[in-house]
């Protein structure tokens, strides 16, 4: 057994685990945060994406022991004091999801992108999410959702499809 000590969404967390435990199972089953999904379980779909020290990572292809000492961010940590994160708001406003299975991973990749590049082109957004698959939306509204979040984070005025239709 090995000791894994991390911060999850800002709070310290530790557990004794088998070295073979995958990070996604550590997050879902040990820490009990089931917002992070398992899709393909083979490094293709990105449903399991979390941030490790700010870096978007496929948690089905990391061992929990590899991130010992690290800082994890999962979808549960996006909302603050009842306020949605701009990326969450963007997915809501722009209808960036249908079934929602890919959404937690997609949003974590989007958060990391916008932290690195606050004003990406559509092409840069598409490249950044090329490791996250969505079987429902056709990506158009996901790109819009991320652009909405970018604009909001830059302090620009935003109107989403949801609001303008209302």
């Amino acid at each position, binding site marked *: 057994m*090995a000791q894994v000590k991390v911060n999850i969404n800002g709070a310290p967390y530790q557990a004794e685990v*088998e*070295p*073979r435990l*995958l990070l996604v199972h550590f997050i879902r089953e040990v820490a009990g945060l089931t917002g992070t999904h398992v899709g393909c*379980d*083979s*490094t*293709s779909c*990105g449903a399991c*994406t979390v941030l490790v020290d700010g*870096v*978007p*990572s*496929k948690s089905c*292809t*990391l*061992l929990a*022991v*590899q991130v*010992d000492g690290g800082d994890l961010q999962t979808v549960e940590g996006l909302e603050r004091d009842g306020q949605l994160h701009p990326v969450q708001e963007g997915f809501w406003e722009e209808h960036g999801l249908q079934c929602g299975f890919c959404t937690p991973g997609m949003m974590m*990749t989007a958060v990391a992108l916008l932290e690195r590049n606050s004003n990406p082109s559509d092409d840069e957004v598409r*490249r*950044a999410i*090329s*490791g*996250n698959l969505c079987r429902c939306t056709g990506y158009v509204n996901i790109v819009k959702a991320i652009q909405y979040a970018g604009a909001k984070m830059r302090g620009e005025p935003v109107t989403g499809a949801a609001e303008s239709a209302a």
Partner: protein
Amino acid sequence: MIPSAFDYAAPQSLSEAISLLQGNAGQAKVLAGGQSLIPLLKFRLAGPELLVDLRKVPALDHLEERDGHLAIGAMVRESALEHSALIASRYPALLDTSSVVADPLVRNYATVGGNVAHADPANDHPATMLALRATAIANGPNGQRTISIDDFLVDTFETALAPDEVLMELRVPRPAAHSGSAYVKLERKVGDYAIIGVAAQVTLDGEVCAQAGLGLTNAAPRALRPREAETFLVGKRLDEESIRHAAELAASAADPVSDLRGPADYKRAMVRTLTTRALRLAAQRARQA
């Protein structure tokens, strides 16, 4: 999918890593980014007793020019190459390669060292390292040694590394003036392994090709250097005719297998097409350099 049980160590020094490998004769595996090894563990195609994680071993993540070569520490991630101004300006084939390995999330972990040490003929970096005439620096119980990339890549999933040796660094000679390089990959979709990939580097003396390097991905049981094509190019004017002839020679050197990515004949034809494209692009970059 759950791997079978193993022990795990994250040593703080190289000597500790080497003694762990040595003490577990053949039953231990080095863990770098894990993007090839963890899938193998999950599919239970590998079942080591011990993983020796290099993440805490110091001085393996440098990416800089030293003494006439580019030094790529074994733990440098693909994403670091992608975002390096030095790589973009001087080593375009390396940038081309790292931007087509898997997807951006895999590239945040996958190391260039692991890509070469894994020695999968479907990995993209081995072909580029052949074209750029890289050397590998290894360290083990008997000290450090330098291995040419041609000797390093032995066979499918087999390198010249002993089980208790660690790959420390890849060295790429700094290109001569008027050199250009490129990597061109044909893939079914983003993130997939190559149907075929071709790396090329040329050095021009006026319009004459003074040096040529080529490497092929997924065209043989290991990354392949099409030697006859390289030799043919040296001393020739680098025009459409010589490029096409070199591409024919590369296609005849290739020994691809039929699989879900296409029949062998098709792949051989793609070696011809992609060699033409890689050489054209490398030549164009050499003229601009």
